[in-house]
């Protein structure tokens, strides 16, 4: 199931909350577990067993580490088993087809044929359970003896399919004891509805523009496209992916608050960044932190000299690319990001520091926008043609044609909304008003939130286009 779905909003959500609030506290984690399984199975009625097996194994390995607390060898064995098992699941389901395809290509004949549909959210929940066993091994956390609590941690519906990647230590205390307060519920509702609005009213809407441009690009109809069309399309995607994914994270964080959890933040106005390194500290924060804690730091981080630092960064960015999907374009995308981050570490950072902020921001946005075709288009030739068209090579030879003019006419308002909504301006304005007249913000929030919710419902009743981009990762 997804959040932006009538069945979720008007059946699952009310039924779950009524039961959850009515239930005695000791049953709430059980409800969270059962609710999560129903939520997950609605989208994956078969792969839900992969999720359950993963939960069971990591629970048992955690218990084993606890039982053989004095035996370093056995503890290490348990950890290695967990790592191998989680990465194998990921490897089989996510990368199996890709690896087999490339082995076949090298061998020149079909040796393997792995063609499994990707289980929703596998990249998220394997990283979550890994954080548990690794942190347990490092003695950062204590063991979870109650299997229901552990299962609730992995499968709770706000974050099971698309993150944020909640680490066990983030919610360890709340799993055992949490309060539901009016404050939290209120903040949770506001956050959830804002996220829903980002997804349904903004991302889906601007996404229609990108899907039509992408459709033309994939069909190879470059001769009908102008340079402006290519730019409008990829800028539309730039907004779509931000509002889609950050909207999803907002919804997850909001739902978490309503049921008493404080999930980590996942986005912090990434399009305001002044360098690519900063961009990645503000975009999909929980993934960046995961790689930092479990890959970059263990490899020595930046403490083993300049060369080693650069190698470590390169490895992290390669893995980040691969995490996003089993295809060469994601690897290329990761390498591209890595090169930018490393150049900033070496020399570019100093230059960016001296530039006026808006020039640095423009540099970041141009890089980000040029990077999305690599992320979005399936083959190298598509990527080359698309980026070429953005630079004025190929296409119908025009910078602006009727098609692009018509897109501007139809999407001009939406682009303006996107630019404002991804900046910190709305927050700054709200804070300024709050300083002068807090009641205006308090009571003004009510009609705004309800209007967004009602607008989203209107769009969902007649839903034609409603994909979640980060499900495929």
């Amino acid at each position, binding site marked *: 199931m997804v959040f932006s779905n009538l069945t979720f909003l008007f059946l699952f959500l009310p039924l779950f909350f009524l039961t959850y609030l009515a239930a005695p506290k000791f049953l709430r984690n059980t409800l969270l577990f059962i609710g999560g399984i129903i939520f997950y199975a609605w989208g994956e009625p078969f792969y839900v067993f992969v999720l359950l097996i993963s939960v069971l194994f990591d629970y048992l390995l955690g218990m084993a580490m606890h039982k053989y607390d004095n035996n370093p060898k056995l503890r290490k064995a348990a950890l290695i088993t967990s790592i191998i098992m989680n990465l194998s699941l990921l490897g089989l389901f996510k990368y199996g087809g890709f690896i087999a395809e490339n082995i076949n290509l090298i061998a020149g004949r079909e040796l393997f044929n792995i063609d499994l549909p990707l289980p929703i959210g596998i990249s998220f929940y394997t990283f979550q359970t890994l954080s548990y066993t690794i942190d347990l091994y490092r003695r950062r956390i204590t063991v979870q003896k109650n299997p229901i609590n552990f299962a609730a941690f992995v499968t709770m519906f706000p974050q099971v399919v698309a993150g944020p990647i909640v680490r066990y230590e983030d919610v360890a205390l709340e799993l055992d004891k949490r309060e539901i307060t009016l404050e939290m519920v209120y903040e949770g509702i506001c956050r959830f509805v804002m996220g829903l609005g980002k997804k349904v009213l903004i991302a889906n809407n601007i996404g229609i523009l990108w899907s039509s441009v992408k459709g033309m690009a994939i069909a190879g109809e470059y001769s009908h496209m102008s340079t402006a069309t290519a730019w409008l399309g990829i800028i539309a995607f730039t907004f779509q992916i931000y509002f889609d994914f950050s909207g999803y994270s907002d919804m997850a964080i909001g739902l978490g608050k309503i049921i008493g959890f404080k999930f980590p933040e996942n986005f912090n106005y990434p399009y305001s960044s002044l360098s690519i390194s900063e961009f990645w500290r503000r975009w999909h924060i929980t993934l960046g932190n995961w790689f930092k804690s479990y890959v970059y730091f263990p490899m020595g981080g930046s403490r083993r000299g300049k060369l080693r630092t650069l190698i470590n960064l390169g490895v992290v960015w390669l893995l980040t690319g691969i995490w996003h999907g089993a295809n060469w374009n994601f690897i290329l995308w990761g390498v591209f990001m890595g090169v930018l981050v490393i150049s900033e570490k070496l020399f570019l950072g100093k230059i960016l520091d001296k530039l006026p902020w808006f020039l640095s921001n423009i540099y970041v946005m141009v890089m980000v926008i040029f990077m999305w075709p690599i992320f979005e288009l399936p083959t190298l030739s598509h990527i080359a043609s698309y980026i070429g068209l953005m630079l004025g090579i190929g296409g119908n030879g025009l910078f602006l044609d009727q098609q692009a003019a018509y897109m501007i006419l139809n999407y001009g308002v939406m682009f303006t909304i996107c630019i404002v909504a991804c900046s910190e301006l709305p927050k700054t304005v709200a804070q300024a008003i709050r300083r002068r007249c807090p009641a205006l913000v308090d009571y003004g929030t009510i009609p705004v939130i*309800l209007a967004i919710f009602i607008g989203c419902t209107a769009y969902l009743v007649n839903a034609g286009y409603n994909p979640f981009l980060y499900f495929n990762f």
Partner: protein
Amino acid sequence: MKNLHKKILFVLFTALIIGLPAATFMFMPPLFSENENRYLATFSAPDFSGYLRNFFNKTPNNIKGKQFMNGFDSWFADRFVLREDWIILQNELEMLQGKTEINGVFVVGDRMIQSWREEAELIQNVDLTLRAVDGFAKRMGDIYGAESHIMLVPTAAEIYKELLPPNSQPGNQDALIRYCYDNLAHLTSIGVMTYLSENSDRYIYYRTDHHWTTHGSYLGYFAAAQKLGITPHDFGRFNVEHASSDFRGTLFSKTLNFRVTPDIIQFFSLASDNDRELLLRVNNGAEIIERDSLYFREFLDKKDKYAAFMGLNSPIMEVITDAPTQKSLLIFKDSFAHSMIPFLASHYSHITVLDMRYINTDIAELVELQNYSQILFVYSVDNFAEDRNLRKLERVGG
């Protein structure tokens, strides 16, 4: 009270997420949506064994077990309380953003116009249809000596091109019609474009429906008459009956825009019609119905009032009249012909109307092809270009 606003929001939000589904289950709407003009979704029981069987086939989106979930989702959305009002709200929000096209329909002034653009492989598709139609016409001429004619009717998007929003790049129907006519060596082409353009200030297309009005189809009849060798009746001789003045058609169904004035259904009749006898035999695929009129007045009380012209699309219709002539006509058509056939009825003793979209057998088994001295194709050009069913004629009469 410090936290009053928090309580208010909590109560209102909870009321919405509980109240709307409760109302949905209390007031289940009927299965057929009149305004949207379609059957709402139903769902079937879960089929988990089917799901498992189909799991490893290569297209995950076709996994059968998810039919229940997907079916349930669309069933719930289709039956959702105040569904039409939600759609109206959505369309208003779309227009508020400056979108000029809602669901493929332009709303310009007091008129809706179905958008039409040239799809990527338009000419390749048209060529296949043209080859089938031309070959069929040639065989009918060679074998039975029948003469074939074709009339491709432009839609409102062509006639009211200048009303469309700037840069909306409508397809060029004029060029497409000319291309088709140029590539049909064995048919006489009937040009109706000029007649329609010259009368564009008259009520020739419906405001809320994609069809032409009775006046529009009179112009089609007038243009066709000259090629068919019949003398058309003067426009002034017809009595005009306003059979209904609250027709909201297919374009309304797509936008649910109540602001555009509803349409008028007009029946044109001649004084002499009262003395004449006529039999309409409709084979709708399930049964054969006989009537003594081409007008189905019962549809005037329903949503789809255009069906008052000869009813809904049926595979075969026969019009048998007492016209003092032995001429018979075979028509291949889409629904644009429905309002034009009444004009032709007084000139032929026998007209057979075939809708190839609903015929999957060899038409030689359904009609005696040798009985017709004239064959007429009447299609709206967009439908002619995109519909693939005329290609079935490739095999006929060979």
